[in-house]
């Protein structure tokens, strides 16, 4: 760990990059707030929300959490498990819709 320390000392990043990311995060948060302010609806709302969300998440992970500078071995270990979550999300979207369908379509009003 001695070595690690030595190496990391010599390679900290310029303060400018942090300030830039910081600023960007504020701007993006403001934009996503504006999505609600102007009451965009439907697909546009969704794509904007998701776009800003992933952009913010990506910036935080890449620069504040230093993933951008980490070696790929670590980055890949962290990102691959997300496929399991993506699969879970996708299937639960389908399942949620199906549950709603089976509550409305048949004779069992609202599942009540």
């Amino acid at each position, binding site marked *: 760990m001695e070595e690690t320390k030595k190496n990391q000392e010599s390679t900290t990043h310029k303060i400018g990059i942090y300030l830039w990311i910081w600023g960007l995060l504020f701007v993006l948060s403001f934009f996503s707030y504006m999505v609600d302010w102007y009451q965009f609806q439907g697909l546009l709302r969704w794509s904007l929300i998701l776009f800003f969300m992933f952009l913010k998440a990506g910036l935080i992970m890449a620069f504040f959490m230093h993933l951008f500078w980490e070696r790929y071995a670590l980055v890949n270990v962290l990102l691959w498990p997300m496929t399991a979550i993506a699969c879970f999300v996708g*299937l*639960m979207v389908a399942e949620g819709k199906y549950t709603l369908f089976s509550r409305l379509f048949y004779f069992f009003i609202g599942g*009540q």
Partner: protein
Amino acid sequence: MSEDFKDKNIIQAQSSETISGSGSGVSPDMDYVRPAEIPEQDLYHGHSFITKWVFCQDAKVIGVQYFCLATFTGIIGLILSWLMRLQLGFPEAAGFMTAEHYYQFVTMHGMIMVVYFLTALFLGGFGNYLIPLMVGARDMVFPYVNMVSFWMFFVAVGVLLASFFVPGGPTGSGWTLYPPQAILEGTPGSGMGIILMCVSLALFVIGFTMGGLNYLITILQARTRGMTLMRLPLTVWGIFTATVLAMLAFPALLVSAIMMSLDKLLGTSFFMPTILKAGEVLEYGGGSPILFQHLFWFFGHPEVYIVALPAFGIVSDLISVHSRKNIFGYRMMVWAIVGIGALSFFVWAHHMYVSGMNPWFGFFFATTTLIIAVPTAMKVYNWILTLWRGNIRMNTVMLWCLGFIVTFVNGGITGIFLGNVTVDVPLSDTYFVIAHFHMVMGIAPLMVIMGAVYHWFPLVTGRMLSEKLGKWHFWATFLGAYSIYFPMHYLGFIGVPRRYFEMYDSPYMTSAVGMNEFISTAAFLVGAAQFILIFNIVKSLKIGKPAGKNPWKANSLEWLTPSVPPEHGNWGERLPVVHRWAYDYSVPGAKDDFIVQTTPPSEVVHTKVEKT
């Protein structure tokens, strides 16, 4: 893939640490292993009885603690299974048992065996003991956290057992704890019982997370010099992948436990739709019981592999050592373990084909499930191909391994029945399922545990277990267990549903009374046979044959410690340096039929070693 073994080519630096070769005409550089990246670990050595044996930070002691506590809960699970079988086989003799009792026993038996016995034993017990030794570390990387992990488990077991003594008794909702019935009147233990179960599971998850982080970081970041991932014994690979699964799957269990507790305590309706009970509409509405099932099985299916993968890994090592032959297709074995682990997150709803979920999921999950059959089959082939042209020691350890192969293949094949969505429809929720999962994740891993106990007992205690008693123990367990679960499949074919307190007033089921009596008798005998092991352990601790160093002539690092049993810090003065994989058995041209992992290439330059 092939590059995994060529990392030596990457290293071109010269070093002062080079050991000169012993063979003539050997370049001294061939034994070069690059220096350590990380300074030696600073260990806390206990001084008093308390810090040495109770709140101990030595992974080996923690492993033994885990082993003992898990075995203790396992024995409770065993006794519960006796009571269940008594009711099923000889109901007239079990007059003291009500349906409430029966369902509580079913539930606690299932939960104890899956989580508190098998998971804790494999990962907590074998993981703690073997990982640091096998990767060549002095201890786990965070010994303090490791200690807390065990005591968390201790508390979790305490809470679990406490539920036997609360009003209403432990929960009787089946080990799957499906709401709404788990938290409604009409199910035993729907009050304090289910709450304590949720609390205990949450504690277990927290404790396990602490341990799991240790196992993973130790394997990834604290290997000794020369120990590449592709030189690790398969035991470590199995435990490693299982731990990864546990770290990613237990969150789903934690979340479902939290949500169910809230449903019970605060009256939220996560899993609770509008419910009419005894003529009254309850205060619930709008929730979805199927959501719980998804969350539960998102945990539950990886959980199956959390139990199975360490067993796969350990049995590979045992078979290899005792057939004096390298494990066949090591790389395939590693990739199969990792592949099974990864795929296990995409198959969970095959437990839910008839649960009323979106019917189109059946196509997806049947396909992913049967894909898993391929790497699993490859592992089976490789085990038996390891036996082929080996030099098989027919000792107790090997018998357990062979018993494992028979039971595992049997259970694996019935898994293909249940994974294939159409075949599952008539068989699900019948005794076929019970027989299947007991065979594949009950008996088969148990065979491995027993084999591992006979194999590593000399390392842990310095004494050999009695072979004679061991063989009696094996045959009683194997033949007994097989005759419990093999016929049980046929109960499922008849259509006998699981979780029936009594079942024989239906015309086509009365025919099975005789079989149930037989199964119950076998169950009593198998359970009793386990006391042979306990007797064997007690006896061998006192008068067993001293083991000496490396009694099995194995290659892997755990047998190469300077003292047997290994002391705190494992390696004495110097950490071992690894030069090869753990499976160089019967190498042509070598003096012995094994070449330990620390043997430098220069010493075996005249042999036909193919892989390092």
